[in-house]
């Protein structure tokens, strides 16, 4: 396997890195849509993470070797993704050597990881176990975000839901 460069997101490796460190998170956004069959491209992994201190520590540990940095920020800022940073922030859009990742403490349409937990499913495949938001809740989250760019994606997600209901 080639060494990751961060140019192309390695979604599976990011997810595996997080699960290997016991991080509590739920996959949302475009990657979740793709897990349900969407054919739309997405370039980053969005996760909703638990804000418990122990979990913040694990996130920091999981990503420390992947050179996390603020996406779009000028190079050279004294940014370090550690417990303090995670405690002081909420949503982080990061670049890493494994690809871009958005760490979301909250998303429109859900207050927290804990609130979203009941609307998530466990995906267990090839020694990889992680949680993904359910399709109906993913649609709700996109509705709640209310972004024009999501409207086409919403149509696709509704089409998938229609097909699944048949």
């Amino acid at each position: 396997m080639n060494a990751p460069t961060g140019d192309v997101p390695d979604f599976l490796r990011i997810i595996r890195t997080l699960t290997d460190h016991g991080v509590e998170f739920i996959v949302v956004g475009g990657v979740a849509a793709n897990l349900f069959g969407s054919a739309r491209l997405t370039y980053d992994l969005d996760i909703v993470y638990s804000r418990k201190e122990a979990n913040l520590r694990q996130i920091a540990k999981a990503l420390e070797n992947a050179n996390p940095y603020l996406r779009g920020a000028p190079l050279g800022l004294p940014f370090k993704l550690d417990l303090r940073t995670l405690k002081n922030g909420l949503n982080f859009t990061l670049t890493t050597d494994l690809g871009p990742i958005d760490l979301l403490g909250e998303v429109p349409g859900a207050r927290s990881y804990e609130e979203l937990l009941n609307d998530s499913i466990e995906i267990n495949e090839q020694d990889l176990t992680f949680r993904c938001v359910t399709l109906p809740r993913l649609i709700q989250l996109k509705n709640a975000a209310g972004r024009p760019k999501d409207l086409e994606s919403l149509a696709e997600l509704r089409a998938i839901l229609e097909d699944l209901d048949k």
Partner: protein
Amino acid sequence: MTFASLLCEVEFGQQPLETDLGEREKRETVINSFVKSGSPESSVPGDKTSPSLPLACEEIVNLYLKDVDRSLIRENLLLSYTDRLRRLQRNVQAANAIRGAGVRAVKSQR
């Protein structure tokens, strides 16, 4: 589409309709907010889970819905979850390569 059917649709069976008075009141509040303002905002204080879209957006989504390529979706659904992510990754790689080629072509013409 009526406001009620719109709200039914966005709830997607998360909770049965009219299960209790609280839910009904919440829905009616949202409907009223639509009627008054046409805004997507929920008027339920502290409610950050409003699943509603503005009516105009609903119409756009419905327009898109007609043209969704379901064959691509069905093809993806034949894959395992991890293979879906692998395919996504390959597609992103291909898109980046195409974008890079485009940028190089434009630069070479200057």
